[in-house]
């Protein structure tokens, strides 16, 4: 059952991300992206990462995609439906590059997690049973990984200041 659902959502995610690349207008591309994010969140649920699935929906689909939507509407894009896929030799070249990349990835991933015992899943299930879905992530985040967490806060501060300065009318 879980595997079947995983295949359904994986197919949805792949189809929607192809839609992101081929959609003609930026709005259509963005809506395909929201669909892909929802499908990826569903695969997170199936992989027992419930809190991350919620964060994916709330932060990614709810905040970041709306930011993109604001910018698309602010710039009033999407009226000039000219073909903006690069044509000719470049498309063939990039198709070859991407195909090579896909081949290499497939080679690397062949049996990557094949017969390794799923120790991580047991650990995570024990932590979730003891501290709950949020606590299982929050405990290591605020103890072992507290320094990267603080650095992330500084990164967000810099990004806020940078965005305000860059988008100001007369710098």
């Amino acid at each position, binding site marked *: 059952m879980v*595997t079947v659902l995983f295949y359904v959502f*994986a197919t949805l995610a*792949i189809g929607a*991300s*192809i839609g*992101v*690349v081929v*959609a003609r207008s*930026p709005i259509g*591309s963005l809506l395909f*992206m929201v669909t*892909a*994010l929802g499908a*990826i969140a569903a*695969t997170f649920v199936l*992989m027992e*990462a419930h809190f*991350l699935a919620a964060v994916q929906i709330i*932060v*990614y689909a709810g*905040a*970041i995609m709306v*930011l*993109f939507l604001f*910018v698309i509407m*602010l*710039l009033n*894009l999407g009226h000039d439906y000219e073909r*903006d*896929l690069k044509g000719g030799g*470049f498309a063939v070249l*990039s198709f070859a*590059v*991407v195909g090579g990349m*896909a081949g290499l*990835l497939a080679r690397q*991933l062949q049996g*990557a*997690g094949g017969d390794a015992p*799923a120790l*991580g*899943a047991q*650990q*995570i299930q024990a*932590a979730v049973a003891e501290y709950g879905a949020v606590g*299982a*992530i929050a405990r*290591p*985040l605020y103890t072992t990984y507290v320094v*990267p967490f603080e650095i*992330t806060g500084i*990164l*967000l501060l810099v*990004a*806020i200041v940078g*965005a305000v300065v*860059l*988008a100001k*009318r007369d*710098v």
Partner: protein
Amino acid sequence: MVNEALVLSAILFVIGTFGVLVRRNAIIMFLCIELQLNAVNVAFVAFSNLFGIEGQIFVFFVMTVAAAEAAVGLAIIISIFRHYETVDVNNFNLLKW
């Protein structure tokens, strides 16, 4: 499940790379970069099933970096749009020879 998730991650990453390479609209290129970041998140979650909760924590950091990148990148796109009245990267040829 882990193997399927890794394959899904690879496919999404490749689609995102192709989008960055072939589209000319700067905003859609950004969306494709977000798609690549999401592909990496899928791989992290899959590996957290094998090696422990650290994978899920790193997904948090990736999401934060994605948010920061979106904010700064969209600000850059807005300020470029004020100069050129377009977001088509073909017109940004100041550094081309």
